[in-house]
């Protein structure tokens, strides 16, 4: 979901505490919303503009359906790097397959989780990803560490990476999706503040998917074993963005299914009318004539 706005700012900014000078705006605000519609587990295709109902702070809006292929994807892949050093020969081909599913105008960045968050790959076109360089970069991102980490005292790389990806501003001409690939492996007692991540996610312009593979997936980078609390928090975070947490059997299929679902999602755009521009806007998206379909869209946005 993205918001582009033209603003006439009449006074200074508002501080976090709410104290300080007030801002008064008169503006038009163009809002873009990613909407995934599933029939069972399958994306429902072929819906038309007139089938969607969208309200912004309870006010119905006139939406336009943008062809999904007109807005290329920015993919942020978050992946644990703890075992990468030991499993390079297996992970390398796996990562190559991930990149192969991207299309020419799409871009990818990879955040590796070792002792800290590492930019394994900064945003670039899928065709510019070095064919063998990704696994080397991921291995280096692990800092050569053993598959042991200490999230609470060193900071929590998973928590940090999610926030880094969620807070990043999104290019208005692109769709941003974050995929957190979570392969259970070494034990850990990470309890990132899930409530905070979910709150940040609700205001993010990206869609978050978490692909969680319980049990050790041979040949995959290992990660911490999430507590039930973490899974619930991540589910809340993903759903607030219009994404989801998926329990998956293996990473390859999980990633492809997630990317396919996102690629087949609908892009709705409207100029917000009848609502003030600033502050929190609660969104509701429905497809009333398809009662059995499940609609995933973000729960709201912050107007500018």
């Amino acid at each position, binding site marked *: 979901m993205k918001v582009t706005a033209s603003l006439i700012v009449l006074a200074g*900014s*508002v*501080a*976090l*505490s*709410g104290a300080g000078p007030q*801002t008064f705006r008169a503006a038009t605000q163009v809002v873009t919303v990613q909407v995934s519609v599933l029939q069972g587990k399958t994306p429902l295709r072929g819906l038309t503009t007139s089938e969607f109902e969208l309200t912004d702070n309870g006010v119905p809006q006139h939406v336009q359906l943008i062809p999904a292929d007109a807005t290329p994807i920015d993919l942020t892949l978050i992946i644990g790097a703890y075992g990468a050093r030991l499993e390079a020969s297996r992970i390398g081909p796996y990562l190559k397959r991930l990149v192969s599913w991207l299309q020419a105008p799409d871009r990818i960045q990879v955040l590796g989780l070792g*002792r*800290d*968050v*590492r*930019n394994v790959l900064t945003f670039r076109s899928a065709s510019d990803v070095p064919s063998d360089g990704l696994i080397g970069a991921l291995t280096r991102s692990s*800092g*050569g*560490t*053993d598959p*042991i980490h*200490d999230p*609470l*005292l*060193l*900071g929590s790389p998973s*928590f*940090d990476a999610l*926030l*880094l990806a*969620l*807070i*990043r*501003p999104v290019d208005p001409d692109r769709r941003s999706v974050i995929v957190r690939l979570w392969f259970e492996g070494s034990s850990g*007692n990470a*309890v990132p*503040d*899930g*409530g*905070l*991540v979910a*709150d*940040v996610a609700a*205001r*993010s312009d990206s869609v978050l998917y978490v692909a969680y593979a319980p049990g050790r997936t041979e040949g995959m980078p290992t990660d911490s074993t999430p*507590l*039930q*609390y973490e899974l619930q928090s991540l589910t809340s975070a993903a759903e607030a963005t219009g994404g989801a947490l998926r329990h998956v059997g293996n990473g390859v299929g999980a990633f492809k299914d997630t990317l396919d679902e996102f690629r087949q999602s609908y892009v709705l755009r409207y100029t917000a009318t009848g609502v003030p521009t*600033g*502050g*929190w806007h609660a969104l509701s998206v429905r497809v009333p004539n398809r009662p059995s379909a499940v609609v995933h869209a973000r729960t709201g946005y*912050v*107007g*500018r």
Partner: protein
Amino acid sequence: MGMPARLAIVLVGLLCLPLGARQAVSVGDPAQPALDLYLRQDYAGFEQLLQSAEPLDDHSFKAFQKVADVWVRGGEKNERRTFVAATVALEFAHRLRDKPSEWAAEFLVWASNLVGNRESDLRSDTERLWYLACLAGMTELSQPWDLSAGVESGTVRLRTLSRSIGPGGLLAVAQRRFPDEPRFKIAQLERDEWVHTRFEPVPDYVALVRHNVQLRPPVEVRSTEDVTQQSVIETAASAVQAMRASAQLREAFKALQLPNDFGPEILLHIGVLSMRSGSFTDSVRYLRAVEGASSDPYLLYLANHVEGRALYYLGARAEAAEAFDRSLAYFRNARSSATWLAALLSLSDAPADRDRAAELMSVAYRTGPAPDPWRFYGRSEAWRWSANIRQVQQSLK
């Protein structure tokens, strides 16, 4: 251009270089020259040597040991040569700190046994400072307390190395030699803090823990649900235990009898442990006392950072953001506070706050991590590695 012509250009180029630059040409095994340079107190030359040598790896220790074992016995003033060799080993280990722990551990264990096995009743200041530097080297590894205090959390190889130092690791040896050294007393509690109190009392998670710990365990573990139920109860019990341990250790820190210089550091630990035991208001009080009692940027960053967490858990979001912001004045771009502050700013409706959140994250993660005291908290002397080594060098004069 043919090979002979290219070779000639390279040779002419090398001959035209000033002497210092010529020395920067890659050398083979650096052990012998490194020991000699350190003995002559040519620390700049030592640095230059290591920069120009091949990067150290998992084979470096064997080459070093072969040379150093002979070198230590190779001259008069054996005591001094012992400490020089042991300190060079610390230097090599430091350069391997981000590699698998065993690589550095071999140097550290060799050095600690070299110093520990001396037949000397003399307790010199050099020896005391050396133990502090060695503790710094050991606690900057992935598993900070394996070698330094005999905690067994790493691989079999690391355990074997650790056991060769003896029960209780280096700290036990150092405390036997210098029982009054305040830093060793603090380190002993820091070890307990690391092992027993790693729990962040996020309020809604604590509420869940308090609920789960009351659950009835399955009579027999038969189904997946039984396994999950048992795991949930065990996790909750360990969380409750960690909170209790935090409260107990807080009292242990309060009971430490140390010179006044150590007051702010002790207050910091009490503040952190108060936070971990869920006493957020107490935590803020202790951490603000650190801010009033110290001018050390490391302590001030940590006090403000943890205060930010405690305030957030108290629901004082704006004050928490201010505390994280204050901490960043001491270590700009440190990721721990930059991330928390950005998260809080991104919850704001004000565009300026949200823009600043994005900018903070962009800068903090654009390159590798900037120095961040929170990454060192609980790792004893690790933060002071450079200062401790400098002190050893001065005492070797």
